[in-house]
């Protein structure tokens, strides 16, 4: 078990009139190499939860274990946890500050105290993954386009070679091309580095296309936790808490309701096409 969260509760500004319980008694664990989608409507506690995983917030109650060790057992060592569990915030381009792209990506590895050689290697590796060309490395990060800035910021976290990477809506505000490119890179990263990924997103399509497990949060609690197909089969419950299923899944649910003999465990458009062809093929008399 790579990461384990036990009875985690977090209250913002406790003991004041502003006190707000952001997450309440949350428990789950993550195995190495999983690709997890974390969904929930705005204010459901997702951001608070992920900030606990790398020790940016301290739990009001509960514990977090990384590789079996309580991450808060030694306060001095919390920085080491942050190198192991990378967190990419929403709109991460806001964190860029260095004169050149290279220096900015090298900030994390530098804080780890690595040698110049090693830092250079890691910067190049990270750039390779997110698709930043070498000639961009000497540019100022502020000259880049929005999508490129985002990639540089993600590279800045990847350069620490964390074993888990958490991405909070990495595609928010990007054009479709930028979205797909970032998501594909993340998928590749998951496959080639074997890195564990937690993806927070409001796009059910993005989650369906990538994640193998989904955790659903509502009002600071985990309400569902299971395989992608299984979670997306509970349409009514998801809609009740302001979420949804991928559009294509929804189409197949409606088709089924209308009496067509289709399976409803369809998550991507590709699967959808195959399923329609299958059903049509079975009833050879139907002509398109």
């Amino acid at each position, binding site marked *: 078990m790579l990461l384990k969260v036990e009875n985690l509760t977090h209250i913002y500004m406790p003991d004041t009139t502003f006190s707000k319980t952001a997450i309440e008694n949350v428990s789950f664990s993550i195995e190495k190499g999983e690709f997890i989608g974390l969904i929930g409507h705005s204010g459901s506690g997702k951001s608070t939860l992920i900030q606990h995983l790398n020790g*940016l917030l301290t739990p009001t109650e509960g514990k977090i274990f990384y590789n079996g060790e309580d991450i808060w057992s030694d306060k001095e060592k919390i*920085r080491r946890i942050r190198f192991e569990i990378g967190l990419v915030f929403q709109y991460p381009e*806001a*964190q860029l500050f260095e004169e050149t792209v290279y220096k900015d990506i090298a900030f994390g590895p530098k804080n780890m105290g690595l040698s110049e050689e090693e830092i250079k290697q890691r910067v190049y590796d990270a750039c390779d993954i997110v698709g930043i060309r070498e000639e961009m490395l000497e540019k100022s990060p*502020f000259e880049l386009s929005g999508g490129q800035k985002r990639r540089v910021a993600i590279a*800045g976290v990847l350069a620490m070679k964390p074993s888990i990477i958490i991405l909070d809506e990495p595609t928010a505000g990007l054009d479709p091309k930028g979205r797909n490119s970032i998501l594909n890179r993340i998928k590749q990263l998951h496959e080639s580095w074997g890195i564990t990924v937690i993806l927070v997103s409001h796009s059910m399509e993005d989650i369906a296309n990538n994640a193998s497990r989904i955790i659903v949060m509502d009002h600071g609690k985990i309400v569902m936790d299971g395989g992608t197909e299984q979670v997306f089969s509970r349409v009514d419950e998801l809609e009740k808490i302001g979420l949804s299923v991928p559009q294509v899944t929804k189409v197949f649910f409606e088709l089924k309701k209308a009496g067509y003999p289709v399976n409803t465990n369809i998550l991507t458009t590709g699967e959808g096409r195959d399923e329609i062809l299958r059903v049509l093929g079975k009833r050879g008399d139907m002509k398109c």
Partner: protein
Amino acid sequence: MLKDITLGQYYPADSVVHKLDSRTKILITLLYMVMIFVVDGFIGFGVLLLFNIFLLFLSKIPAKFIFKGLKPILFFVVFTVILNMFMTDGKVAFRFIFWDVTYEGIFTAVFMALRIIFLVIGTSFLTYTTSPITLTDGIERLLSPFQRIGVPAHELAMMMSIALRFIPTLIEETDKIMKAQKARGADFETGSLIKRGKNLVPILVPLFISAFRRAEDLATAMEARCYNGGENRTRLKELKYTRLDAYAWGFMLLLFALILIIRIIGFDIRGF
């Protein structure tokens, strides 16, 4: 962490202090500041303490909030105390390593600390009980008589309200950037003063960039809505004096008289 800074924030509640006209509150705050400097002994401070407690109950602001607001000035208070304790001549009370601490020194130190604390607590009631918008409206109205001699009252008030409006936003932004850099292993808590100063660069650069961007966006948004200065502008909420303001003024003038009497008669405790 940064969200815990309460000094200068507005605390919405339904109380008579909140209902007072902001002009009254601003002027009363000025009078209160004068009172603090009139007071020259512990009985005077006792009266001010009672006044602050009274205000606390009247305004329905949690006491915890007030104490939290004192945190940022703690360093300043300690600094003043130490400086006064060791730098005042007089009758020696005890020796601290090689410095003489005098009775007068201790008295001045305590006195100065009380002055600062009362100044901060009392004036913070103004911002706790007055929303930034009505506060700047009040300032604008109070400054408007000076417009004839060239004081740009409206512009000043506008600048202030924008500045106040963006404090929470910038605090939030700072918090977010700090977290993002911490996630990349930045360390703000250890190291020498110079190193710590250097470590602030990863926060300050993004913060400035976002502040400039926000300023530009705001200017564009104002321009898009044809904003132009104070001439002929009307308000959603007009400031209005009520009977409450008269009561407040009556009470404050009595308090001021009391403080003056204590000072003039001179029976206050001014030493040990």
